[in-house]
């Protein structure tokens, strides 16, 4: 290798889970990383996702690949981020006969995906979760957990920062420096000092989530995005100890997640073009109340704490353009634009779920290292992350005191 | 683990005496409660018992000549001055002075307290002796 590892400079665009994972992975492998985020870290989709550390049960029947990925990552994350989850497990709850029909295929699919399950009769289920709908017919326990989306991802950023990554918040990417099919850097605008500057890079990783399309467009590339917002409702009062899922094909409002003193009900799914300010339709919020009340009747009269929406950056498979975005596979995709569009020096990583952020980062980092001819294996699966507070306590003041 | 972080996190002028803060505060609270009693006695004995609320010179002298009154008044003076000085110290410490300045303030207040107590005892003594 001509230069030392620190000689290679990678610019990561986007301060969400994917950006955090990639910055951590590449810094751990020894590369010099600069990350640009136009707002605060995790202020995009990452901060606002449901907060479920999926066991994969939800996708076992419909998306086996996604499910297997989830359970693998679920275990890794518990190992590398100890103490960051409410590890109470999850329950898939069958309420109607139609749900009961799903049980056999659900159990088989879970087993095939390597997801441990325990079946509970109604009496046992009500003992575990007293607020559960008394009409419960069957409950299947899986290793779900509750996540604090901001703090888990902040651990990745804190570790990356500790390993030398330069995390620049409130810095917006206004363009990509590219000529004759090669991206050599980014044009950055510091929102605080109102200053424009250019940042050269050996590889630019586009981890901008729902905005990946806009970043790709800066180099004339059409990233096949499908933006699918979902509404989430947080109500005051913790109505369940563990994550409650409705046992049927994934649809709206069928997960209740306990988090601190709140219960978060989600989610819905539709398709939009503009990722910026997704609306929070009142009828969706009403639907959350209705669907949530099926699992836990007390939710119907729970006091609303907040309702918001977040945009899922899904990968539109070139063939099927889905109506609600839910049909699309929930695995992630990593585009090396040298292969896909003949543009060197730009990698886009998008799609997937929060639970699989480490795996997404690993595959993106592998692609980057392969492009740069660096043969350093990924070790994020065995490296315990720094505490989230380290991001603040070890951050040197950027603008001087 | 938490202990070693302690000094690294916040260098301290005064080494952690373990009882650094609690004694000062408890004394302030105890002296305050004591004052409710002592001040109550002082006001009632001095101003309410007497018709018109004020004693002329002779009555004051005779009142102070009684040793029990002398003892209670002296205790009252000490506790009151102690409470007052701690109170002023708490107010001044709210200005966020440096540790060194705060140490100086504490010493000055002790001196002021002693001076005030000295003066008070001198007053009581001269009156009681009926010069």
């Amino acid at each position, binding site marked *: 290798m001509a230069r030392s590892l620190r000689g290679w400079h990678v610019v990561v665009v986007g301060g969400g889970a994917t950006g955090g994972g990639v910055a951590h992975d590449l810094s751990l492998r020894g590369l010099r990383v600069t990350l640009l985020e136009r707002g605060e870290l995790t202020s995009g989709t990452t901060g606002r996702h449901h907060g479920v550390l999926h066991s994969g049960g939800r996708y076992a029947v419909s998306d086996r690949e996604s499910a297997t990925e989830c359970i693998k990552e679920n275990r890794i994350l518990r190992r590398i981020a100890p103490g960051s989850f409410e590890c109470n497990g999850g329950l898939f709850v069958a309420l109607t006969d139609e749900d009961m029909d799903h049980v056999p295929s659900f159990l088989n699919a879970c087993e095939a995906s390597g997801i441990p399950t325990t079946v509970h009769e109604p009496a046992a289920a009500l003992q575990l979760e007293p607020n559960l709908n008394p009409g419960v017919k069957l409950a299947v326990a899986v290793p779900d957990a509750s996540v604090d989306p901001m703090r888990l991802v902040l651990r990745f950023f804190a570790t990356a920062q500790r390993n030398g990554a330069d995390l620049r918040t409130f810095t917006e990417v206004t363009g990509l420096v590219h000529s004759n099919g090669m991206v050599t850097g980014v044009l950055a605008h510091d929102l605080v000092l109102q200053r424009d500057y250019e940042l050269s890079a050996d590889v630019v990783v586009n981890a901008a989530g729902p905005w990946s399309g806009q970043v790709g467009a800066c180099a004339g590339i059409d990233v096949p995005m499908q933006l699918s917002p979902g509404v989430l409702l947080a109500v005051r009062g913790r109505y369940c100890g563990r994550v409650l899922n409705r046992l049927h094909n994934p649809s709206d409002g069928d997960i209740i997640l306990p988090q601190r003193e709140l219960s978060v009900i989600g989610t819905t799914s539709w398709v939009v073009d503009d990722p910026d300010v997704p609306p929070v339709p009142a009828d969706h919020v009403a639907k959350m109340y209705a669907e949530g009340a099926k699992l836990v009747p007390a939710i119907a009269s729970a006091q609303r704490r907040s309702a918001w929406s977040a945009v899922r950056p899904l990968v539109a498979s070139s063939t099927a353009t889905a109506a609600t975005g839910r049909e699309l596979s929930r695995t992630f995709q990593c585009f090396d634009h040298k292969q896909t569009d003949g543009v060197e020096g730009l990698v886009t990583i998008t799609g997937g779920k929060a639970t699989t952020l480490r795996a997404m980062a690993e595959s993106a980092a592998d692609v980057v290292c392969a492009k740069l001819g660096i043969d350093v294996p990924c070790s994020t699966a065995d490296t315990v992350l720094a505490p989230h507070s380290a991001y603040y306590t070890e951050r040197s003041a950027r603008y001087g005191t | 683990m938490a202990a070693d972080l302690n000094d690294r996190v916040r260098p301290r002028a005064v080494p952690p005496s373990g009882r650094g803060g609690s004694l000062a505060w408890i004394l302030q*609270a105890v002296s305050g*409660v004591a004052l409710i009693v002592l*001040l109550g006695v002082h006001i009632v004995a001095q101003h309410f018992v007497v018709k018109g609320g*004020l004693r002329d010179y002779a009555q*004051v002298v005779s009142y102070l000549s009684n040793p029990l009154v002398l003892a209670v008044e002296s205790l009252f003076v000490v506790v009151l001055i102690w409470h007052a000085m701690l*109170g002023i110290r708490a107010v001044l410490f*709210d*200005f*966020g002075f440096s540790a060194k300045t705060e140490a100086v303030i504490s010493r000055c207040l002790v001196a002021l307290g002693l001076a005030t107590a000295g003066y008070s005892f001198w*007053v009581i003594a001269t009156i009681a002796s009926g010069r």
Partner: protein
Amino acid sequence: MTSTTVHTRPTRGRVRGVLAYANLRRRHLGSVAFVTNRITGLLLVGYLYLHLGILYLLTEGPRSWTTVLHLFKNPAFLGLESLLILFILIHGLNGLRLALVGTGVGVRHQKAWFATAMSVSGCLYVVVVLAMYGVI
């Protein structure tokens, strides 16, 4: 790892800082109690030294004391004296609340304690004023 000290927290300048919490516009009952306790406390210390100064006359002998006595008898002065009693009541009873609450007793009802302290002070003050002006 950079050294971690807490010195970097900027206060709004010393005097401004103290004045900051003196303005009670957007503060709650707890702050009202804190500020009243502080103001009455300082006033009482002021009175303590005034009182010690006047007692000096007693040491001068009967003549100077009786001249001052007349001054103390007129009703205007009595009004001032009653204010002193009010401050003592407020500071004392609020101080009692702080002593209890400050050691974790009745913390949940701290506002109720403050309300009782103030109302008891008010009632006793009325009794004292009546007694002073010889009504009772």
